[in-house]
């Protein structure tokens, strides 16, 4: 994996992790307005990073990411490699 790809992917993982953690927190603290704002802001950040990553390296999300032809989804590396 080249340096830029790895760097971008780590930033996406970090932003997404914040979203996941806030999601769990909000499940038991549904009235925390600031937490919801924070989560939504991190989603904007994640979307921006994903757009940058995906146009260079291909789809991340099986439901929502666009693909060129030939079908990019199958291309290695897969996350465990």
């Amino acid at each position, binding site marked *: 994996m080249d340096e830029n790809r790895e760097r971008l992917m780590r930033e996406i*993982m970090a932003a*997404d992790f914040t979203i996941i953690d806030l999601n*769990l927190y909000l499940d038991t603290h549904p009235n925390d307005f600031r937490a919801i704002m924070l989560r939504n802001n991190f989603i904007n950040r994640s979307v921006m990073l994903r757009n940058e990553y995906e146009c260079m390296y291909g789809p*991340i*999300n099986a439901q929502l990411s666009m693909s060129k032809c030939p079908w990019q989804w199958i291309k290695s590396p897969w*996350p*465990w490699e």
Partner: protein
Amino acid sequence: MWVYEKKLEYPVRIRTCNPKMAKYIISQYGGPDGELAASLRYLSQRFSMPTDETKAILNDIGTEELAHLEMVGSMVYQLTRGVPADVLEKEGLGAYYTDHDHAVYPMSAAGVPFTAAYIQSKGDVIADLHEDLAAEQKARATYENLINLADDPDVIDPLRFLREREVVHFQRFGEALRLVQDKFAEKKFYMTTPMPRM
């Protein structure tokens, strides 16, 4: 439903193979306190949860455990990738190699295949949440044991992340339990099941 994203929740980049560690780490894949048990337990219990908060937390923690399952599987895969059979055998994976070659198979460190006997889905919110609290502690303790067995920072790093997540999950289940107890104390019920049987 679930959507797959082509990324791990947290990076796993192991540069040095170590079949001996793989043999131990596989317990968090298919062992009694591993991520498969956790995800199946929570995703099964969620159906009978009585409140919005409990349905959500069981659903969402269960989902995160699947991401952890993927991380643990990736660790086992990277620790054994390309290792020749005689080395696997010398490092204690001879029996495993016989039946599974370099594949990842859900079992414990002792070689016991995964079983649903590791989980309960009782349908009683108090019982289920207490089981979940215990499960998170058992998982945390297991990750601590694995961290004690490891010396490669590439291995310790994701193990530390996974251990910390167990601590957070324990916290969330504790909050969910308190919310349920408060809710039913409000109505002054002297019962343990959330739905009165008429």
